[in-house]
């Protein structure tokens, strides 16, 4: 009975979709009122209406169903030059995959493509779709082709003929993820017109080349009621006028929002973020924030990237202190600012942050900063073990370990000097008065390991990303460098 093979990346799930078995199955969103169909009873539904719905991808299911005879025929034939969907209404359909698909897991899209790629779920098409105009391809084939077009192309495809417009309309309606590039000349109203086509949108990524203000936020809030993830990238030429109050309101009202990433936050001024759903927050180009309040108990990841301007007046220490106290679930912290100081880091650790930076976290830091990472402080990280730790940073000068197990220190030693053991097997290391271990690494003239003096690890909880940013900024600007003696 399984006429249709669901895509492997979209396992069948969600029993709520099993309400309509057989010939009638749940649309992803209601065809009448446009609301998501899951758990939804449409006031306009009459009992027989859904009988006509047929999955988009199952003309061949009809063929599969008729497989007791030797002849296998598809519902349509290019050769014959005509299209007719002959799916018998009695065919019991397999469930369409209802789970969400991750971006890019479907196609091997190039980086350029991914910028404005549209990702949709399969969903049912109505049988009475006008097929005559769909170019001699069954709707299922057309669907597979059109869903791989970028949004701008998909908009144009509607111009081909009415049949195509209908298919694209359904594609938009089924879209859960949209990556849209907004050219400089585009007006907000046009962006809104696109967003209104996709009421089921869960993830939205906008690359905006025009100026952006709160109207855009309002438009998104209005058009995408179930939005979970929002990314706003800005170009160098565009100005982001969104204020802290406006963004705070957006976050407070979007109760499904778990992830927010925004660039060009010059004009935030100050904000009070209150959300129980928000778990990831990335803000970049922050400047002179007067007030930063995080009332987000489930925040797991935060990245605050301050503008690299001398006149930034943000009180980082207070911010970091507040973060540590009000966001108990924080795992990843990335703060990049000229103002980041030893005090800010201490404020974070003083806030008694419990966290779970692990070996892979360190690996990530090393990957991100392979050239610039020159000092690494691992403090209060109980989840860093010796097993999977991998340090690969050419310019790593100093790693500071305190209260660490001997094994971890040994692992780091191996990682760091492994290649040079034959050349230099003398690694002075001594236990400091506070119980921390300092490993002093000899100076190498190797092109890869120019200098590697110190390694210092603490045992406890975590501030790894903050430290990584610190390291980067140290190497960017030496003037705010805490001296290494201050750390140890």
């Amino acid at each position: 009975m399984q006429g249709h093979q669901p895509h492997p990346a979209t396992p069948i799930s969600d029993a709520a979709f099993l309400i309509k078995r057989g010939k009638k199955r749940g649309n992803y969103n209601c065809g009448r009122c446009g609301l998501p169909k899951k758990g939804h009873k449409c006031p306009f539904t009459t009992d027989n209406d859904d009988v006509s719905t047929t999955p988009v991808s199952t003309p061949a299911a009809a063929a599969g169903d008729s497989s007791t005879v030797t002849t296998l025929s598809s519902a349509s034939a290019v050769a014959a030059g005509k299209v007719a969907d002959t799916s018998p209404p009695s065919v019991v359909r397999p469930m369409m995959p209802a789970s969400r698909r991750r971006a890019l897991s479907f196609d091997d899209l190039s980086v350029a493509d991914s910028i404005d790629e549209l990702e949709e779920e399969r969903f049912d098409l109505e049988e009475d779709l006008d097929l005559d105009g769909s170019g001699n391809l069954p709707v299922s084939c057309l669907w597979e082709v059109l869903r791989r077009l970028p949004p701008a192309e998909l908009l144009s495809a509607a111009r081909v003929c009415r049949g195509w417009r209908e298919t694209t309309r359904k594609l938009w309606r089924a879209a859960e993820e949209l990556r849209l590039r907004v050219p400089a000349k585009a007006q907000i109203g046009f962006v809104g017109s696109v967003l209104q086509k996709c009421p089921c949108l869960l993830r939205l990524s906008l690359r905006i080349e025009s100026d952006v203000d709160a109207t855009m936020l309002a438009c998104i809030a209005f058009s995408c009621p179930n939005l979970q993830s929002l990314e706003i990238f800005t170009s160098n030429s565009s100005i982001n006028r969104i204020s802290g109050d406006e963004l705070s309101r957006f976050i407070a009202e979007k109760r499904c929002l778990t992830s927010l990433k925004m660039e060009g936050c010059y004009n935030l001024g100050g904000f009070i973020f209150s959300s129980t759903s928000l778990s990831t927050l990335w803000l970049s180009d922050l400047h002179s924030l007067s007030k930063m309040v995080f009332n987000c108990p489930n925040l797991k990841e935060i990245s605050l990237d301050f503008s690299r301007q001398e006149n930034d007046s943000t009180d980082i220490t207070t911010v970091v202190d507040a973060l540590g106290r009000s966001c108990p679930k924080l795992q990843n912290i990335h703060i990049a600012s000229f103002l980041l100081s030893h005090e800010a880091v201490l404020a974070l650790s003083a806030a008694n942050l419990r966290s779970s930076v692990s070996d892979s976290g360190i690996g990530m830091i090393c990957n991100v900063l392979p050239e610039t990472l020159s000092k690494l402080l691992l403090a209060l990280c109980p989840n860093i073990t010796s097993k999977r730790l991998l340090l690969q940073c050419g310019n790593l000068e100093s790693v500071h370990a305190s209260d660490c197990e001997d094994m971890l220190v040994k692992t780091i030693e191996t990682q760091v000097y492994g290649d040079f053991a034959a050349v230099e097997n003398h690694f002075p290391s001594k236990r400091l008065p506070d119980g921390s271990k300092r490993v002093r690494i000899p100076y190498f003239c190797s092109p890869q390991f120019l200098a590697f003096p110190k390694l210092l690890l603490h045992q406890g909880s975590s501030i790894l990303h903050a430290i990584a940013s610190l390291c980067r900024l140290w190497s960017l600007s030496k003037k705010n460098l805490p001296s290494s003696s201050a750390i140890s």
Partner: protein
Amino acid sequence: MVTTDEKGPLTAKKKSVIIRSCDGDEFLVSESAAVLSTSLKKILEEKEDRLIHLSDIDNKTLAMVIAYLSTHADDGLSDDLKRSFDQEFVSGKEFDVLKYLVLATDTLQVTCLCYTVAKKMADIMKNKLVEWVRREFDIQNDYTPEAEAEIRRLDAWAWDDRQLEDD
């Protein structure tokens, strides 16, 4: 282009099936390759007959699909090799050929090939004029000029001033 097995179709009864195209030619396919097509798999599960007639797939297309199935049924090939085969498979093919291919994969329910071909088609369609699309798909424009202009007005914003191609 008859590629019926030299050893005769009945010698490997358990392991192969014969697929006949709409042109009447027969292809001997190993069962491991055939079952990669969901439609064929269902047929093979339900009946003893090892001859399957495909009424709307021509020789050329069927040969390509079978080449694809055979490659993907080969356990000796790594996934990487199969992926590069996929890329090779669709590259350089005429749009028309791809169109027949995507139809055949739809009939035979060869999902991964369908996705590969559809992706290739979408790639070709990028930056193409609407008129090009209509011509390739043999579609009559059923819009009134006013209706088309209105749609054009609504989507024009998404485009930079880049040049669209007509061939």
